[in-house]
């Protein structure tokens, strides 16, 4: 039995999953850094596509296919496309954009670090050394049963919130 197979025999650790997690995570971190360091707005949005695709890939590694596909449909197919549409409609300059603010980067980095610290602390505090056991892919019916029974109030609240945001955007945009 090879070394990797011996590791796989330990039911809690899936070696291939961890290796690919590392690959995807490194690619995501690199792409995320490029999002904030490139001075071309369109390139930033395209790097963001890679980050979001990486998130979808991580969800697939965790067996949550439905969430992964939703990630692609909503974030890549809609949100980033709207970003790009807006950018191109207003300022479609090729090459580097000089007006991208550089002097506020220190502040932004500080806020980013702060956010990272808060989220990391919350995650580590909640799960401590629990292991997420992925025995089989999560089925769509599991997701829908959870949404429409246990989390129905949250689901309805979110949909009302989205509707309010939609109407609010129209009200703000229309001056008459």
């Amino acid at each position, binding site marked *: 039995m090879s070394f990797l197979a011996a590791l796989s025999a330990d039911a809690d650790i899936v070696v291939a999953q961890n290796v690919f997690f590392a690959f995807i995570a490194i690619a995501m971190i690199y792409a995320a850094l490029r999002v904030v360091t490139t001075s071309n707005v*369109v*390139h930033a949005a*395209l790097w963001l*596509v890679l980050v979001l695709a990486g998130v979808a890939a991580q969800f697939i590694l965790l067996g949550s*296919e*439905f969430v992964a*596909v*939703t990630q*692609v*449909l909503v974030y*890549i*197919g*809609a949100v*980033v*496309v*709207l970003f*790009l*549409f807006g950018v*191109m*409609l207003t300022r*479609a300059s*090729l*090459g580097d954009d000089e007006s991208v603010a550089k002097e506020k980067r220190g502040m932004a980095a500080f806020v980013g670090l702060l956010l990272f610290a808060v989220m990391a602390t919350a995650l580590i505090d909640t799960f401590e050394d629990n292991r997420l056991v992925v025995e089989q892919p999560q*089925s*769509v019916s599991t997701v829908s049963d959870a949404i429409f029974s246990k989390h129905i109030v949250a689901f309805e609240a979110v949909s009302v919130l989205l509707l309010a945001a939609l109407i609010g955007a129209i009200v703000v945009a229309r001056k008459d």
Partner: protein
Amino acid sequence: MNATLLLAELAYWQQTGIRVGIGLASVLLVAGALVYMHLFKAVSFMQSRLGPMEAGPYGSLQLLAEVGKHIQKEDIFPRNADRFVFAAAPFVVLASTFLLVVVVPAGPDALFINSELGIYLGLAVSSVSVLGILMAGWGSSNKYSLLGGLRATGQLIAYELPLILAVVGVVIQAGTMNMADIVYAQANGEIFGFGALGNPYILTQGVAFVIFLIAMQAELAQAPFDMPVAESELVTGYMTEYSGMRFLMFFIGEFATAGVFAAVASVLFLGGWYVPGIAPDADIMNVLGPLVMLVKIVVLTFLIFWTRFTMPRFREDQLQRLAWKFLIPLALANIVVTGVLKVTF
């Protein structure tokens, strides 16, 4: 079920290799057949001419000649173009098409993946092609291309909603998103207790079918929805600066997407590989199924090209109004009615 046994003996990477090969072949061969039958021949007959006749019998090798021509051409990059984005754009569009075919089943075992996400996965994958069109429009550093890219994006976003909402009606009625199970649901369905013909959803979801076809026409940017590639005003929009191999990729993408979308529509509304009289899970359907699917694809794509060469172009405001004020409310009403009927019966 022999196909399953055969595949089970192969390693995962071998199965994947076979699936990739068959997927590429099925998309490209169908796209080539559609170009020859519809674009070269059917349209020519409508216009009282013969179409290509020289290369091969009845011009059947014309397409190979065209491909050869495009491969030989120089791959030109505009001087100010964003080289990487410009070069990558056709790959994004083509990848979206080739990944979409993955969800289409052509027989009880003749399928690429048997995922319960099925059509949802397909819709997500097909929504990525907008990104490639935006990349092409912006990366060309050409104002016509940029305008074409923006028009295409506005149109694709508007018509993606009725497309998805039309599918929801089918998913509610079938009770599953799995494409193969949607076929079984139609094959085992009954029309007022008469089950010999099954129940293809074109009968009960006729409204959704019409909405799906219209939205499909717009997603493919075929006339009357060809505002983004209007050759007389935008010089084919986002494709203006492309030449040679990369232009060929956009061209293949256009017809391959037409074929794959028609395959999706025939699974959702026309009963997929099912023909009345043969059990849908019989072994023989692994051979007959792809042929049945091919006939349905040819019929549906003929509708697309018939419309394309018959209708004049929509104006931009008419196009948006049709999507937002007519198709989307109609699709939502269809969902409500389907939901109510599903609960009552």
